[in-house]
């Protein structure tokens, strides 16, 4: 789960990680009020969406007067922002963050992520602040320093020294400030079950202080149960509505661009089914994992979500029953054809637990448009042919 910049900064503030003062607003009037409250003389008007690259997309702008704040708030609020991290359709800006301008002397990059290879958190830092860190990693990898921190010992002095010297900081006050900053940030990472924290840029001010000018946080979904304050920060308007709806029924759904709707049990088989369709010359319209406890109701819901997509020309149901019983899926398909108008061919391949019973149920139901796939390859081939109108 991701949160907005203003929310990340609220969390930073609780832990004493320095950030500029700012206020989140949802109207132009409140934007001006916020600017008055902050006092100026310089403000930054920032679009709040769950994607990076906002500045380049025109979603972050500097204002030198209250009039300018008003003008910029008017421009940015309600605009559809397209960045390298959004889809081509972009994201609607519904919230702004009005922030004090900072005295920037130099810009750095700082993040904490999980290193899956080392199986521990990793602090990454660079003097190349404000740049896309993936570009830095590709072109000048020597400018990125990495410091793994074993949680069983926590953030120690030597981690801090590696960071300060690695960034070329020689002033003792600046060294002390960056170490304290990173130490607090690491605590945020551990305490809040974060998956990643990224500050880009982290700025050094004229007085040698370090301030989080930006803040991006993602969290471990599996830990949200014990992080109620984080779970409460979820902004559903930033997520794909169909994916949210699907999740409510225990379905894992991701929309794609193709023509063949997929309903599969298990994430691996769901990806493998998409790959097979693609390999046979078709295009998958979605990823959909019905999960381990699929019922007639969830299957019917899955059909409904798949069919919302007007591009779908055929549906491939591919189930290898382990815990999921094929007869339940078969009943779900019958249920779905009663509840929704399934107006495209449905190719069904059911194997594993209770597959024979399922075949019998489907045969007796006599559903028009239903084509049986004998195995994964056969089912995918039939789905590709059906989508092409053959």
């Amino acid at each position, binding site marked *: 789960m991701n949160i907005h910049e203003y929310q990340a900064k609220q969390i930073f503030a609780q832990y004493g990680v320095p950030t500029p003062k700012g206020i989140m607003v949802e109207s132009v009037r409140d934007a001006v009020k916020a600017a008055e409250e902050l006092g100026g003389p310089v403000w930054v008007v920032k679009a709040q969406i769950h994607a990076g690259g906002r500045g380049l997309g025109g979603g972050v702008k500097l204002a030198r007067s209250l009039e300018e704040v008003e003008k910029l708030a008017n421009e940015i609020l309600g605009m559809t922002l397209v960045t390298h991290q959004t889809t081509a359709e972009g994201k609607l800006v519904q919230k702004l963050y009005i922030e004090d301008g900072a005295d920037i002397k130099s810009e750095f990059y700082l993040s904490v992520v999980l290193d899956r290879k080392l199986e521990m958190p990793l602090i990454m830092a660079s003097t190349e602040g404000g740049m896309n860190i993936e570009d830095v990693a590709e072109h000048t990898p020597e400018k990125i320093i990495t410091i793994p921190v074993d949680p069983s010992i926590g953030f120690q002095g030597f981690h801090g020294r590696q960071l300060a010297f690695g960034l070329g900081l020689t002033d003792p006050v600046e060294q002390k400030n960056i170490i304290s900053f990173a130490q607090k940030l690491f605590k945020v990472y551990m305490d809040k079950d974060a998956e990643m924290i990224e500050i880009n840029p982290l700025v050094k001010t004229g007085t040698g202080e370090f301030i989080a000018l930006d803040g991006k946080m993602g969290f471990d*979904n599996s*830990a949200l149960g014990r992080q109620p304050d984080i779970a409460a920060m979820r902004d559903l308007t930033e997520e794909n509505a169909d994916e949210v709806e699907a999740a409510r029924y225990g379905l894992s759904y*991701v929309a794609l661009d193709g023509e063949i709707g997929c309903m599969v049990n298990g994430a691996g*088989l769901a*990806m493998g089914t998409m790959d097979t369709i693609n390999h046979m010359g078709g295009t998958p319209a979605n990823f959909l994992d019905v999960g381990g406890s699929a019922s007639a109701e969830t299957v019917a819901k899955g059909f409904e979500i798949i069919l919302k997509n007007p591009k779908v020309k055929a549906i491939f149901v591919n189930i290898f*029953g*382990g815990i999921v019983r094929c007869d339940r899926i078969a009943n779900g398909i019958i249920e779905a054809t009663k509840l929704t108008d399934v107006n495209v061919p449905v190719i069904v391949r059911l*194997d594993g637990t209770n597959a024979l019973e399922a075949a019998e149920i489907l045969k007796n139901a006599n559903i028009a448009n239903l084509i049986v796939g004998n*195995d*994964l390859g056969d089912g995918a081939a039939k789905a590709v042919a059906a989508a092409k109108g053959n």
Partner: protein
Amino acid sequence: MSILVNKDTKVIVQGFTGKEGSFHAEQCMAYGTKIVGGVTPNKGGTTHLGQPVFNTVKEAVATTGATVSMIFVPPAFVGDAVMEAAEAGIELAVIITEGAPVKDMQAAKAFATKHNMKTIGPNCPGIITAQECKIGIMPGMIFKKGNVGLISKSGTLTYEGANQVCNEGFGISTAVGIGGDPIIGLSYKQLLAMFEADPETHCIVMIGEIGGDLEIQAAAYIKENITKPVVAFIAGQTAPKGKTMGHAGAIVSGSAGTAVEKMAALEAAGATVVVSPAEIGKAVTKAMSKL
């Protein structure tokens, strides 16, 4: 022979009396697995499915001599359960539970390693040595005894792969579902080494997916150390960047963790890489016919 577990392996179940634990323990017993007891705090001294229940893993191990634990406790308690098993001297913990916090698994795995306990999972179907011992939730009937070892991050692709191998007239020595979380226990590399050393295994099927670099590490290991034929499939060639595809660990971040990169590395290491899971069975037949 086989790897890790066989007909003599003594298994306890943590979360024995819960709904999931009960259901699957019963299925495992019906398959022939020696479930010798289970652990549920405050139910010690009772009997469940004809086996003794203990309050702690320590007591269960002392009384039954179990070496493997199958873990079904709820996600929030998985870390604790794994560490308890490690401390009690369990040699292998098979963690079925889905949705354990990453931070907990990080600490639990580090602790398990310190105590020389191997782990499989979490969020996995478990491990099965065909027609001998099933520790997990897979449908046992599709695994016929044979000479193909199978390693997979995905549960249903494990079934798909095993089913194809058996339909081709071959069978499975041991199949291991390693799970698709960001932090998992035994990985391809370690299991490849075990299959290489197992005389019953003649060919290895390795099923991976996008995200992380375990498959890349496996490729390097195959190149240097594996003499048996490897058939590999990587799921997620058509997955969009930056999206989590069902499994918490299945995500392409930036240019890292793509299917293309992994397939190329495995190909270069000498593995037979298939572009669709539908081709696993045929590829195994081809590999076995050359032996």
